[in-house]
């Protein structure tokens, strides 16, 4: 569920409807994943899942799986 919604967000942000998310994906694997796209991504994630990602985690996601896990934790805590 989170994975599906996350994939949709990625497809929108990166204008790529073929994009298939995997847990091991990193910024280096996605064309256009720069600092601006990252802010747009974090914003869309926060809005979509009604969560607030802490400032100290902003830049520290090692992979898509890491981000997904963090989203699930925050949702669980809510």
């Amino acid at each position, binding site marked *: 569920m989170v994975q599906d919604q996350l994939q949709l967000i990625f497809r929108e942000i990166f204008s790529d*409807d073929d994009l298939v998310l995997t847990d091991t994906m990193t910024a280096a694997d996605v064309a256009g994943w720069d600092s601006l796209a990252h*802010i747009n991504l974090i*914003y*869309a994630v926060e809005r979509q899942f009604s969560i607030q990602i802490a400032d100290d985690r*902003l830049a520290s996601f090692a992979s898509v799986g890491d981000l997904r896990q963090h989203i699930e934790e925050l949702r669980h805590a809510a």
Partner: protein
Amino acid sequence: MARPGAGTDTPAGPLAALVARAAATELPSAQLCRELAVAHERADDPDGAVRWALALTDADASADAGAGLAAWSAAAGVLRRCLPRTRPLARTVGSSTTSQLTALLPLAAARAGVAIETYEGGYGQYRQEILDPASGLYQFRPDVVVLAVHAGDVALPAIADDPEGAVAAEVSRWTSLWDTVRARSGARIVQHGFALPAEVALGHLALRTAGARHQLLARVNAELGRAASAVGVGGGDAVCLVDCDRLAAGVGRRTWFDPRYWHRARQAVALDCVPLLARHTAAVIGAQLGASRKCLVLDLDNTLWGGVLGEDGLAGLALGEGPLGEAFAAVQDYALELSRRGVVLAICSKNNEADAREAFERHPGMRLRLSDIAMFSASWDDKPTQLRRIAATLGLGLDALVFVDDNPAEREAVRQLAGEVDVIALPTDPHGYLRALADYPFFEATALTAEDATRTATYRARADLAAGLAAVRESAGSLEDFHRGLAMTATVVALDELTLPRVAQLVARTNQFNLTGRRRDADDLAALAARPTTAAICVRLADRFADHGLVAVLIAVVDGDALAVDTWLMSCRVIGRTLEDELAGLLLAEARRRGLARVAGHYRASAKNALVAGLYERLGFTRVLPADADVPRDAEVTWWSRRVDEPYASRNLIRVVTADHRMEEVLG
């Protein structure tokens, strides 16, 4: 907006499923619009893709919160790929992160009726960009500079000892930036006004403290507005402001500014609100570039009053009294305000005309009078037909009209069958009507003139003229007399820096009377006009009722022994005035002056230009095969030629004069 998908072939596969989902709802969500835009792009249907990308900007973003910015960004990407542009150019310069705004502006502007390309200045570099003559801003030669600034850029202390001086100093700091841009580039400027912050340390005391920053910010906004209205000559559209404080107040100041994203990434406007800001910035750019809508077309039953006149009778209408009656009265008052600021009002109703007019004359709750209405269309014809009649009568394109109706079926019919008309979807509750009208941003104007308050009267005169014309047509034979009575004068003007914007606008937007369908942009046109082998004939038309402005463009280039038509178009305002006959005469004379043997033309059929399919033939041209063997024998293109030594007699119903010295010789 045209209902996307209207008129397209039945799509297959996943696209069909999406189209079916969209058909089930009047206003598909932003999310669905995005998917449709992408699916059309994949199906190699760029027109469909663009239509859905534009439809997305009207979708209620709040219905799927969070989809707003991301969906807009995706749609902006579709537009960029399917409708590539180079001009006009807008450059955003600011003090905060303006990347999202810059990316969304072409989409928002396309929705506002102007296709633009945008470039972003260096982050936080607005002063340097403006003050340094060698900066990127001037190298890009933008048509519009968007000063995307915010309250944090205003240098005011918490409490100023000298409030007047502080305001004056701040205002002059901005106006001197405007002056520099204007002096160095001639670009128009759109500046974001300052949104007041939600947090005020002085509390309510701020209102009693003359030097309070909160108060001074509001005064700076007002003074900037005053200064902007004084910049430029005539229309004064050189500097326009976007009232960000109003936008912020509308969504809530705490929604407009999100400290988390300000501190994280210097987003001075919360990302949620960037689409709204883009929409309104684009509306102002659209107004500067002449793309605003002109005419508000109102339904009657359950739109201007509660109830159905034909069933409930005059006495049964809800209007003026009671909560519902007050809601409708408020809508009428708002329409009146729009009328006083220059929006032309028309009525489009399915009713007996006499009954509907009687309601205007006799119902005590009516705020609108018959004299406020430029064209009163009440009949049992379908609304798309009535709208076409209204547009034709008022001398406007359908793309100048905005249609308001409480009935979703009527709205849908208009979207399907008169897609150029903008449709405002009223909510089911009449208490929400006024807000739906007020949220529509594309009546934006750059200045308020004395003429605005009386525009409806001017258009009524035009409607009366059209009625006269119809009467003349019925009494066959005297159409020539009628034309002669109009005392028409065509003035030939040069294609130069003064006329280029209007010519580019005509080239970009004219569909019906357009022989070749070439969409050259301003740069392209300027380059073409500069060549000695190019003849560019631009014509203004005036008659005793109105000055129609620059309405016809004919560009031809020397090709062997012929002067060959490159672009030939006329505004729909002047179709049926025999102006094309005069243009053909001018073209033949120009070819003769250049010592050429003939004039060559071609007609490329489009979805909208059947009107001129037979034009060359009527003007005495002979159909030929394309001279160039490489030209594909395209079924959609016909080729024509006319010798200059064959006599040509124009109908002489228009006096032709020239303001273009190069044409003096031609006119003799």
